[in-house]
Each structure stands twice: as C-alpha cells, then as structure tokens.
C-alpha cells in the first residue's frame, strides 16, 4: 500500500518504521526541516516533503492522488481534521486515519468521513479508569459507535460466579466471546463455568452495555 503520513512526531515516526517493516511504501509531509533531514538520513526509502500538510499542494507533491491511506498525525486537531478532509474530498484517498487530542472532537471527525481515530486522551483515560475502578468494566474498543468489545473482571461477589454460561440471563445484543483465566485464553461454550478472577471479553451492540454489566456484575 501507499501510505501518506502527515506529521513526523512520535506517533508518525513510530508508524513509519512499523509500516516500512511490513513492506509498505511511505511518504511523509513534515513542516520541521530538521525532522525531514533526520528521516531522509535514517530511512532513505521514505519520500519526504518539507512543508505544511494543510496545504493541498504539498499533499499533491507527496502523491496523495495515488495514496491508499492517509494518516494525519500532526499535533493539532484542526490540522488533522482538514488534512483528512482534503485527502478524502480533493484526492479521493480511500481511508483516512486521524490522531485526535480532544475526545470531544471525535464526532466531528467521524461526520466528516474519517475512518479511524487514534485518540490518545481516550486511551489514557480508559487505562486509568481500568486501574482505579474495582469491579471494572472497560470498553476495549468501539466500532462505528454501534458495537463495542468490553472487558469485565469477575470478582468473587459477582452473582454469576459458579454458574455455567447457559444458565446466565444474557441480554439480547451481547455475546461472551472469550475468557482469560490464569494466564490462558478460553473460548467458552454453554457448559463453561465462570470463576472469580476470570477476565471476560464480551461483544455488545450499542445500548446493551448496561444490561450486560448488570447481568454479570449484579
């Protein structure tokens, strides 16, 4: 694939190294001349364009017209927003990935057609929540706002401990996909008995999360 990366910060650079390792073709648009020089010296197979990625001429020079994916990894939300919008509307890039700092901006990114959001703030806050809230139920990821994968830690007090899965009063719109038990993955069936300390991975459609939480944690 031909991947166009806008912004050579930590996220952008890590991504470039990973994608190069997987054999993809990479172009980088970066404003800082020192970063450009460093990339040219270190990774000479990357096409480097020195300039502002919010200027369509620079995206064009970097080959946006033939890019399969654009990754907007600049520091400011408004820059990533307009970079993705240009890529989609002016250059017909198939997939746009954007780094978002303010979670409140995520909806607007989705409305404008960004396919995938890298939300550093959301990831960090979810991790913190997971660490400090006992009985945690954590959303691992959400797909198009419609479907989520949840991780639920079963404590001894949970009403479902000791029950086989077929006896559970599972809400519609949810499925129990996997269990992590004592360092081993288990793909459960109806006869699998839940134990305290199980980490349960469940998939639910939007609106069923609370019912699932109630069913498993009481």
């Amino acid at each position: 694939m031909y991947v166009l990366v806008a912004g050579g910060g930590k996220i952008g650079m890590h991504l470039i190294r990973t994608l190069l390792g997987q054999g993809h073709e990479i172009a980088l648009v970066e404003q800082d001349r020192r970063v450009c020089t460093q990339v040219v010296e270190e990774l000479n197979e990357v096409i480097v364009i020195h300039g502002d990625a919010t200027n369509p001429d620079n995206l064009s020079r970097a080959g946006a017209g033939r890019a399969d994916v654009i990754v907007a990894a600049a520091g400011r939300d408004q820059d990533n927003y307009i970079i993705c919008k240009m890529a989609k509307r002016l250059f017909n890039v198939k997939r746009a990935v954007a780094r978002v700092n303010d979670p409140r901006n995520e909806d607007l990114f989705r409305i404008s057609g960004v396919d995938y959001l890298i939300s550093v703030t959301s990831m960090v806050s979810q991790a913190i929540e997971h660490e400090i809230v006992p009985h945690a139920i954590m959303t691992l990821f959400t797909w198009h706002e419609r479907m989520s994968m949840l991780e639920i830690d079963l404590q001894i007090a949970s009403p479902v401990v000791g029950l086989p899965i077929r006896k559970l009063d599972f809400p519609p719109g949810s499925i129990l996909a996997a269990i992590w038990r004592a360092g081993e993955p288990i793909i459960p069936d109806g006869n699998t008995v839940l134990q305290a300390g199980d980490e349960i991975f469940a998939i639910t459609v939007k609106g069923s999360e609370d019912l699932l939480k109630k069913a498993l944690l009481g």
Partner: protein
Amino acid sequence: MLGVATSLRDVANRASEPPCFAGGRPRYLRRLGWSIVSPAVILVIGCGRLGSNFAMRMAEAGHDVTVLDWDRGNFASYLPKEFPGRSFVGMEIDAEILRRAGIEESSVVVIVSRDEATNMMVADLAREVFAIERIIVRIDQPRLRTLYEEAGYEVLSPVLEAALSLERRVEAMGSR
C-alpha cells in the same frame, strides 16, 4: 438571506422584511435617526485586524456582538477599548467553548482568524453540531475555498477580494 443596506431606500424596503439587518452605513443612518432595522446577534471568531475591525463596526451599528479568540493578547492589541460587545477567551475548536460564547443564540457566525485550519473546522462545528445556517468563513487557499464554497458555505478570501479591488482600481485609472 444576509444583506447589507447600501442606501436609505434599501433600509426602508427592508423594514417590512423578516429579520435581517442593515450595517453598511451605521453612523450615517444613526445621524438621520435611522437606527438598526433589526439587531443581529453576531459571533465573531478570531480577533485579529479583520475580526476586531468588523466586530467594532457591527457593535457600533447596534448589533449584539461577541468576539472569541484563544489569545487574550489579541483583544488588547486589536480591539478598541470602547468596544461595547463581549469578548471571550477560549479555544475556538472546542464545541463547549463555542456554546459558552453563545453560538446557539447567534444568528450569524463570522469566522475570520488567521488560521485557516481552525476556520474550516470551526465552520463545520458551527454547521454540524450547532446547525447554524448563516456562516461566513475566511479561507484564502484557492482549492480549499472552492471545497467550502461547493459545500454551501459563504467564503471570504481577503486576498482574492483585495486582488479584485486592485484590478478594478487599476482599470479605472485607464492606460494613460
């Protein structure tokens, strides 16, 4: 439809029309006893030379004007001390800040900061999140201007307007 009255007859004609406002000759109109046909609630985003100048004019004409800029220093640098409207410090691309600056009560949103990426994102926020219909957004980059015009936005390009004005003036000078 947004309109600026250019003569007294315009103002008289518009008096019977549904809410719009006249702002073209504020001082002149006031002297003649013509005040505002119907004051508009205007949110100006970006308090640079252009935003502050426009905000001051509209406020002097009697409109209800709020200016938003993330840089407090811009108010001191560009907005006259006697500005009768409100000024609001905050990040423009934050929907919560826009709400607190009164975007929901605004009949017109004028987005004229020097940062084009900010202007474009704020324009989309105003339209998609707050359903504002009257938006004027400053964009100079020609391809982005076209993109936003095609999306139905009222776009202002100071560079283009100045160039057109220069063209007209030079042509008017003739080829002596």
